């Protein structure tokens, strides 16, 4: 079963303001796709479309075998919670502490307000040097730490698809290299990744195929 299947799909280009030529795209479990583009904005819009944050102009979007209905945002929540979204568009909830941000999804779905982090989250917080910043509000974090918290939050979601925009700039090459093993394991566990990057080592290590977004077209 494919995880994502876009058919006769089109979205609006940020660069030209026109619709993309209709395209088909699919992502299988464990598939890792790198994006090459002449417009980072179009690539981000494509990632946002995959994250179901931007509605398509036309075409259908099947997620884990289900057709998505973009006319009702609440119907998209079930798909969204399985998508890791590590891009410049991702944000933390500003009136909650870092700890509460990390625990928000668990608190929501388990009806538990426990402030205790699970071992996996603790391990990732240690890796990203966030242990002493858990009780700060996002506004008190540096931009780098803010992005690290977003990355940790998206990784602990146990997503089935991870979307990343320039991870080497987003969390820095050192931190990116530090989570390579984690990403390898997740890909081994059938995580699909679509990413936009200029970091050759990362592309060569992970990418299984290339996707070109250029001038209003998308070619697999």
């Amino acid at each position, binding site marked *: 079963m494919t995880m994502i299947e876009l058919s006769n799909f089109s979205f609006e280009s940020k660069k030209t303001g026109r619709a993309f030529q209709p395209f088909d795209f699919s992502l299988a479990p464990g598939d890792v796709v790198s994006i090459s583009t002449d417009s980072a904005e179009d690539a981000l819009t494509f990632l946002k479309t995959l*994250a179901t*944050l931007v509605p398509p102009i036309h075409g259908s979007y099947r997620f884990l075998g289900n057709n998505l209905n973009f006319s009702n*945002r*609440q119907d*998209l*929540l*079930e798909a*969204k*919670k*399985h*998508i890791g*979204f590590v891009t410049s*568009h*991702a*944000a*933390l*909830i*500003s*009136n909650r502490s870092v700890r509460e941000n990390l625990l*928000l*999804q668990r*608190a*929501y*779905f388990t*009806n*538990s*307000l426990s402030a205790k982090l699970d071992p996996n989250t603790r391990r990732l917080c240690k890796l990203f040097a966030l242990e002493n910043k858990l009780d700060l509000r996002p506004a008190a974090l540096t931009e780098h730490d803010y992005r690290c918290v977003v990355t940790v*939050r998206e990784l602990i*979601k146990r997503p089935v698809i991870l979307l990343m925009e320039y991870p080497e700039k987003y969390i820095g090459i050192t931190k990116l290299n530090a989570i390579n093993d984690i990403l390898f394991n997740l890909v081994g566990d059938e995580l699909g990744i679509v990413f936009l990057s200029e970091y050759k080592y990362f592309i060569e290590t992970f990418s299984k195929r290339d996707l070109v977004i250029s001038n209003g077209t998308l070619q697999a």
Partner: protein
Amino acid sequence: MQRVIGSVGRQALASLNQIATQLTFAYKILRLLTFPSKPGRALVRRITMEQVYFTAVQALPIIIPIAILIGGMIIIQFSRFSGQYDLGKITVLIIVRELGPILTAFLIILRSATAVTIEVGYMNVLHEVDALEMSGIDPLWIVCVPRLVGITSAIVCLFIVFDLVAIVGGYALVWIITYIHMSEFLLQIANAISVADITVGLIKAVLFGITITVTCLYHGFKTQRHITQIPVAASRASVQCFIYCLSISAAISVLFYL
């Protein structure tokens, strides 16, 4: 002439469209209250408690002196006007029926409603609403429902506090210049007040709570792109809340007392 009529017509249609959208939005939020098995109940409860704390508890040091001053002013004026004969009746008429609910609503609009518009506006502009959705969390359930329940219950509680403080505190403030005793004054109020007065006050408070919250959330969520839209949205929301509350208050008074 045609242009003027056209312009008026377009504005009327736009206003009707906005009211219809707000009513739909209110229906969507209120409908969520009928799904008790939805996930996130613990979180919703906590955010509701926080909202009640911000809107009701933190407003007490402001509303109590205002209620005493307004109660005092009314009692001073009417004690001279009516020779204190109908003081209890007039106090019920003015404070419990009209001023209590509306002044409480105005205070909430000034203190909390604008804050809600700004908070939700920021959440929208800074993609925090998208962040909630990306976690599978329904923003209507986690952002709107706690604010609706919290602000509405806060207005109901503050309305009761306002009435009690305005009557008792107001009398205490002016007891020197009045001839009637406290017990006599309270007896006059007890004779003058009816169940309908309290019910109408509570109905007004609940409707004000729903109207204020929905209007503020609507304007907050409408702010999509730029931070500069947020103050405009806050200003529009507070003016609309003001007009809606006055209209509701007048309509209910006409409906029950005319």
